[in-house]
């Protein structure tokens, strides 16, 4: 039934003409110490966003994690509380994070406090002291956080997938063992800082209500004293995916199963990238995709299935993820394989491609329309050696990709025969369903 009886159908209004992708005003400078600074103007609110990307490949896992956890814990002249308070005075804040590619300092604050934020940033970079008490406190906190992460099904599924996909590559394990964290002492952190926290190959991005040249001057003034010859470490290329039996990870008592599939992908600069991005959207990369319409909107197996091309320095991979009801785990895998296979062997419909294309182009505009979005985008691109100009090239490739291009990309990258599949759930209940569809290897959930 409908709540009101339909009158004559109303027609969907057409879209107005597309607005051209307009890049914001920006400037770039490489300082004498090797630090690249990129400043982008978006004056919408009186704030500035800060992102400092430092290459950190092949660092010791536990020490790297502890370094990120304690980088802002003090300098010779400031305690952790003083650092936080001084940043707060100008409406600012900084936080540090790490992954197998990079160490990242991120923050935002009132634009009137830019100089002060940069000064504090410089002090932390050149003079972080890793005080004993703070390191001890943060060590315990990090260990607790790891324990909490290990109780999350999404984390356990991700851990199993990474291990299965990357084998012996440094990307295979990304969360340190609690025992290894407990062994980290302040001296080791100071050494690691001296070796790896240096400006060569690092990129600082400043986005906001700033004149780009003035922002570059401010960064140069604050950060040109940051030095320390250290080293960088090249990551080996990620290994190709090796399909094999489905890995069933047993988590007894789970009321849901975590389904993960890894498929091959290419870096942003590869000629297939735009077509692969469109193929991924059509498969499962947005809500109006075949996968979501099938296993959520038609069958009600799951709440939020999604697939995404993940780019890392050593390689790219496409990951599809869904949390599905235990009793329909087999059927959900069947439908997933069906949708991948259908796209890999039959071309998409023209209107499906147009819809995905508009989405890809529109979300580029949306991503650039906030200071925080622009900062994250600029920084992620800079981490792959790209600049914002690449957005315009990429938009042109998205605009030009044909049904044939997308079909070829789907055949090349989305074929289910290429997938590495991991399912975390109650093995006793889901094992037989999965075994009916694929050879299965079972192992207990490990942290």
């Amino acid at each position, binding site marked *: 039934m*409908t709540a009101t009886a339909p009158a004559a159908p109303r027609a969907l209004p057409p879209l107005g003409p597309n607005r051209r992708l307009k890049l914001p005003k920006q400037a770039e400078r490489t300082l004498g110490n090797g630090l690249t600074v990129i400043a982008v103007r978006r004056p919408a609110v009186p704030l500035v966003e800060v992102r400092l990307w430092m290459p950190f490949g092949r660092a010791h896992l536990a020490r790297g994690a502890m370094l990120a956890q304690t980088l*802002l814990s003090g300098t010779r002249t400031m305690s952790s509380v003083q650092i936080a308070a001084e940043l707060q005075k100008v409406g600012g804040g900084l936080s540090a994070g790490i992954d197998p590619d990079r160490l990242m300092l991120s923050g935002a604050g009132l634009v009137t406090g830019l100089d002060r934020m940069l000064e504090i940033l410089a002090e932390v970079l050149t003079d972080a002291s890793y005080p004993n008490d703070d390191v001890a406190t943060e060590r315990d906190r990090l260990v607790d956080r790891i324990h909490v992460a290990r109780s999350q099904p999404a984390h356990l599924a991700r851990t199993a997938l990474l291990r299965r996909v990357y084998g012996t590559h440094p990307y295979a394990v990304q969360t340190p063992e609690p025992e290894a964290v407990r062994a980290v002492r302040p001296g080791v952190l100071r050494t690691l800082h001296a070796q790896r926290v240096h400006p060569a190959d690092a990129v600082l991005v400043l986005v906001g209500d700033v004149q780009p040249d003035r922002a570059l001057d401010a960064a140069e003034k604050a950060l040109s004293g940051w030095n320390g010859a250290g080293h960088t470490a090249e990551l080996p290329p990620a290994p190709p995916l090796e399909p094999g039996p489905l890995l069933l990870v047993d988590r*007894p008592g789970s009321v849901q199963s975590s389904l993960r599939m890894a498929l091959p992908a290419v870096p942003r600069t590869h000629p297939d990238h735009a077509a692969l991005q469109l193929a991924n959207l059509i498969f499962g990369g947005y809500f109006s995709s075949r996968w979501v319409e099938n296993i959520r909107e038609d069958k009600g197996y799951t709440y939020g299935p999604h697939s995404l091309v993940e780019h890392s320095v050593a390689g790219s991979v496409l990951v599809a993820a869904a*949390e599905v009801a235990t009793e329909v785990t087999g059927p959900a895998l069947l439908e997933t394989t069906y949708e991948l296979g259908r796209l890999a062997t039959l071309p998409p419909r023209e209107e499906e491609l147009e819809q995905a294309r508009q989405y890809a182009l529109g979300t580029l*505009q949306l991503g650039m*329309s906030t200071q925080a979005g622009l900062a994250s985008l600029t920084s992620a691109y800079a981490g792959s050696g790209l600049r914002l100009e690449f957005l315009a090239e990429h938009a042109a490739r998205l605009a030009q990709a044909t049904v044939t291009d997308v079909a070829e990309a789907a055949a090349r990258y989305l074929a289910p025969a290429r997938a590495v599949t991991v399912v975390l759930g109650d093995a006793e209940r889901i094992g037989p369903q999965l075994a009916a569809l694929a050879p299965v290897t079972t192992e207990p959930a490990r942290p």
Partner: protein
Amino acid sequence: MAARRSRIPATKYPVERFTLDNGLRVVLTPDRSAPVIGVAVVYDVGIRSEPEGRTGFAHLFEHLMFQGSENLEKLAHFRHVQGAGGTFNGSTHLDYTDYFETLPSNALERALFLEADRMRGPRLTEENLRNQVDVVKEEIRVNVLNRPYGGFPWLTLPPVMFDTFPNAHDGYGSFVDLESATVSDAADFFRRYYASGNAVLAVSGDIDVAEATTLIERHFGDVPARPAPERPDFTEPDLTGERRTSYTDELAPLPAVAGAWRVPDPITDFAAYLPYVVLAEVLTDGDASRLVERLVQRDRAVTSLGGYVGFMGDPFDVRDPTALLLQAHLPPGGDVDKVLRTIDEELDRLATDGVAEGELARTQARMATHLLRDTDAVLGRALQMAVLEQQRGEPGLLNDLPRLVGEVTDEQVRAAAATLRPERRASIEVIPGGGR
């Protein structure tokens, strides 16, 4: 160190308001700095209004609003928004339900058409209802049942603090209630609460006001007029004695605790309410805040700590009754009693000695950054203005919030802290089941 005070900046987003003949209130806030728009429709109904025996219904109904409408098949809404380059969602709160999209500005008319169509009438079918009950059950499993600390504290603390069904029940809903929901329940809910007179439409971003007004009249003008239902009084008396409870979370590896105190009415007594919003930040915003410094860094009694006003962290879009909440995770074997005692001690100290020099000013500067950052996205602006219009008739308050936060005084923060007494506190402890 001299307490040099950062000047608190403000935004000057223009605000145009009007009401259509059918009672729909409209807020427009143009900004042509990027070719994108935000569109929000907010209905004045939330979790507190759902009937007894129908826990989770407001949220289930939110899902049904995406399942087709008068001129749109199931799936069409998603395809038309995303096929125009946009993204969409909806969310259910204690006091309102919102539907929104953000898109390139050439899709303005399309977005208005889509929202108007479902305001006229969603397609409420048995098949869609059963499908979305299944989807919502998976949503509850992923967010609550299959993960540690699921629903803590927003679902687990209200039943300790409140006694009446509207304030105390589980807003995600029980599976029994969800499964017994009927199409006729949904039709009744729509008729009663999804009236044009009970809704606000806000459009922000790259629009021309005259053109947008014409388009809004074209698409919403003939939505049948229905008046807003009377909103019941959800008031409950304040606590007169401490309330405390605990439960075992089989999946949780570590203890956790949350405590809350009632605060003044956010709508009718905003001046008295605002100091509590600031107090929550003085206590918990970052390493230089009172409770983080004391409990995390000095005592090592907790490993993480957060605090905010409103059960969903929404201080400027919630009505009375609401609360200031503090929540903390503890290390293995941590002592919850001691944590609560220390919080009381720090609140006493703040009430007695007041804030330190510069402490309030720096907290206010950082709150300004958070407020400005949230409104930088056109959609954030549309959503907040829609709710401010609905609950206060004052969407332009968004521009004033950083300044008003900045005007809260030491004395007001101190007085607010003095009211957070143990005998007015409701708290809940998570006992770890050891993890699986």
